[in-house]
């Protein structure tokens, strides 16, 4: 335990009474005294503050935006060049087999690219970018900034009360805001399915800002437990569980994140690792697909539950990759992979839970309607 890293908000978490657990090499708050259920519901109805400082923040810079964007496009199947100033997009690093090495958010900040990657992958991601892009593009991991997220229907009013410019931001916009005397790089995005912001802020200023946000009646601190149930209800993938190095974006139902310009027939088609596999699956389909799964009973179906096409006997057709209780749904929810034949919404399946086959059906994602400011 001694070698766990701490975020700049560690002391604040402890002061708030958080239960700290090891996560991706960091000591992180899994829940506060409010508890996972109430934290989740509070975020959906008011606003929740998350410490996501364990995530990697990276700046790519080069001779021009064109040079940076074209270089980054050799690593991701996403339209980077077409990104306008102050806009953010979801993407993923792929490997030669078409699998996903990590998923990420990237935003255009002047001629630079601001990339946020998963904590558990950040070392490998930075090494990958340096190996592939330097010296033409400089890859700098930002180690002097923390990252916090304010999410929920009241987040916008709170942030706008500190800097009115926040009100003008739309979903997936990036801009500098002055919050409580602190300059932050704000994006109007998150990992909950709610409207909200992610705020990159100097480490030595983050605690003051976090406390100012928590001082608002509408804001509660939210731990990793509720972060997971919020993103699951929102149908968002957790890397290493719902997507990984042996899962392609097409299997992962992330086709929407591969813009036309990078697909077969597009101006900049292919040119990323695994393009042959991914573009072929885009045209011809994949053998399995990520879907939403709605258990009929009360028993949660968690990661690893094997799915069958019959209550007895039958054929194994898939597996749950994320599952648990959805507080806003008021019952169990899950995501997983099934053969394409079983991927139709409404398909009846059975999950093996502790040796019993329990019924569930393939369901539309997200489980809770997204509440973004489009």
């Amino acid at each position, binding site marked *: 335990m001694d070698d766990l890293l701490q975020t700049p908000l560690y002391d604040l978490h402890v002061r708030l009474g958080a239960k700290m657990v090891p996560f991706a090499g960091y000591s992180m708050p899994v829940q506060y005294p409010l508890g996972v259920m109430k934290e989740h519901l509070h975020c959906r109805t008011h606003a929740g503050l998350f410490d996501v400082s364990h995530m990697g923040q990276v700046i790519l810079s080069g001779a021009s935006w064109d040079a940076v964007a074209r270089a980054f496009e050799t690593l991701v199947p996403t339209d980077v060049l077409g990104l306008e100033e102050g806009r953010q997009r979801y993407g993923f690093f792929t490997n030669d087999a078409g699998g996903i090495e990590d998923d990420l958010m990237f935003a255009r900040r002047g001629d630079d690219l601001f990339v946020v990657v998963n904590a558990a992958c950040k070392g490998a991601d930075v090494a990958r970018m340096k190996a592939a892009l330097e010296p033409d593009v400089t890859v700098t991991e930002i180690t002097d900034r923390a990252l916090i997220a304010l999410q929920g229907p009241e987040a916008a009013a709170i942030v706008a009360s500190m800097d009115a410019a926040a009100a003008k931001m739309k979903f997936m916009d990036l801009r500098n805001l002055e919050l409580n005397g602190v300059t932050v790089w704000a994006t109007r995005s998150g990992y909950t399915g709610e409207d909200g912001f992610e705020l990159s802020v100097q480490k030595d200023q983050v605690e003051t800002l976090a406390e100012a946000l928590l001082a608002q009646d509408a804001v509660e601190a939210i731990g990793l437990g509720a972060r997971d*149930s919020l993103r699951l209800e929102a149908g968002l993938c957790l890397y290493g569980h719902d997507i990984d190095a042996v899962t392609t974006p097409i299997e992962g139902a992330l086709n929407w994140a591969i813009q036309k310009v990078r697909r077969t027939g597009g101006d900049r088609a292919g040119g990323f690792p695994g393009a042959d596999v991914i573009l072929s699956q885009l045209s011809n389909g994949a053998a399995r697909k990520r879907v939403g799964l709605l258990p009929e009973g009360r028993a949660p179906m968690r990661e690893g539950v094997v799915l069958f096409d019959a209550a007895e006997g039958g054929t194994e057709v898939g597996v749950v990759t994320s599952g648990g209780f959805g507080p806003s749904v008021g019952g169990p929810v899950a995501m997983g992979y099934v053969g394409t034949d079983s991927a139709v919404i409404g398909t009846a399946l059975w999950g093996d839970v502790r040796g019993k086959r329990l019924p569930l059906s393939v369901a539309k994602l997200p489980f809770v309607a997204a509440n973004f400011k489009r």
Partner: protein
Amino acid sequence: MKFTEEHEWLREEDGEMVVGITIHAAEQLGDVVFVELPDEGITVSKDDDVVVIESVKAASDILAPVDGEITEVNSALTDNPSMVNDDPQGEAWFFKMKISDPSQMDEFMDEAGYKKFIG
């Protein structure tokens, strides 16, 4: 009331043992969302998995604290699992047992011993 190192409590009532989990255990589990109870009338051995309890975070097994027969289960928990958080050492008992070997109770702690055990 007696307490086990598995954070269960046992209370004698009409010659049977009523079994539940402690306040400390309920706090550790967090919000309980699902309880699966055993069939009434089955015979169990000490440390058999008899109850599955799921919180928003994870699934946990509750073990039979002693050998015996499950005589009654608290089916109210199936419809209202959050009772386990609200009143773990009262209303939210899990099952009643007719115990086979009363000497198995000897190793259990009293309340003061349990408080010391959980620190």
